[in-house]
């Protein structure tokens, strides 16, 4: 369910989540994960599920733009936008 969290909390949660699949997330906030080939395609699917379930936002088909999901900071911006805060 959606819970109120700050942008920093979203960032930490996304980093912790991706840290399950990538060896080191330190300093990776702006690295292109999908276009850079760092995320396996199944993990990219799981990332979208995670965003929906954890932050209570819905990813619609028009949201399917690489720009929304390619890096930790882009995901944070996407979640903020979807939650109507940015």
């Amino acid at each position, binding site marked *: 369910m959606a819970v109120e969290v700050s942008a920093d909390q979203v960032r930490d*949660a996304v980093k*912790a*989540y991706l*840290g*399950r*699949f990538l060896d080191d997330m330190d300093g990776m906030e702006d690295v292109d994960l999908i276009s850079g080939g760092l995320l*396996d*395609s*199944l*993990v*990219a*699917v*799981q990332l*979208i*599920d*995670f965003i929906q*379930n*954890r932050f209570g936002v819905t990813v619609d*088909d*028009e949201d*399917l*733009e*690489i720009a929304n999901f390619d890096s930790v900071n882009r995901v944070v911006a996407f979640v903020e936008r979807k939650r109507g805060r940015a």
Partner: protein
Amino acid sequence: MSGPATGEPEHLAAFEALAADKLAPLAEDWERAGAVSREIVPLLAGAGLLGALVPTASGGTGWSHRDYGEANRVLGALSPSAQSLLTVHGMVTQALARWGSAPLRALLPRFAGGHAVAAFALSEADAGSDVRQLASTAEQVDGGWRLTGVKRWISFGQLADAFLVFARTAAGDAAFLVRRDDRGVTVSPEARTAGLRAARLAVLELDGCTVPGERLVGRPGFALTQIGGRALTYGRLWVAFGAVGLAESCHRATLERITTQSRFGQPLKDFQLVRGLVSDTELAVRSARLLARQAATASDTASQWLMDEVLAAKLAASRAATLAAGVCAQIHGAQGLVEDSPVQRRLADARVMEIIEGNTQLVQDLLADQTIARWRATSRGGVQ
């Protein structure tokens, strides 16, 4: 709603009755003839299965994944070829319900009612496991897209009215719904495979086939992940249930044989080495069934470990089918080697389960990622 004794939902109990009374004799004919006939379509639609993965609000019957899985298991025991129709039609209708444009979603009641059959057209001659090698292209043209390429090994392509086709565009990988009656589409029978030989495989040739813009499913750049990757995750779950059904039918044939045949003055069931085969198979089948059910529940409850559960179920179930089919063939001696016999057919079907929806080695590789991720999540006390 509950069935009489087991707490089983009524729609599932009704399908099991249909399977026993009607589908079982038909399945024998289909398997012998090497072709599932179109008469299966209204039967499955009438049972609610062709719209099972479509929400009721979109014209489907909205079954739980647990119930749909059980139906796949039941049909898989009768005919793995027929079961594969549930796999591909289910994958495509579910993808359309989730990502389709409004005009595409408006077609869902037709798919649910069995007025149209959907097939999944991802593989090509050189792009099977490695879908990044996709060579089919879609070029944006005035008002739509022009598709060119050859898709291979399409289960039920011979019967399908529509295909979910994956192709490259200038903006990345994309998925489209292509109709059999679109101009530039040619469907022809595929080389007959030894396993799933009744699954009506087809080759789909797209020769500058032009489709309107609304046929794009999702957005370019996301087809292989969000559309295809997700569809394959569910496809793996249905294959897992189908493989459990296949394994169960092999195991039953083994038990029938060893309890009715004697050699060297004693029933086969009393030989210690045979008893080892029986208990190993029992263990494999039983654990695969539990893993498949657990994975379906993970899906119904939107578990964060869905991928992990599905990969484990697919690996266990396809291997259980291989083991059970091999033991069944061994126990049948020369009888088990007769061409076209049910024992041989099951052996060939089991082989397919380790190839489709991710070959065994690829699934092992993906499962290792999930295993490490799950371990990291718990050992680091990471996000839950």
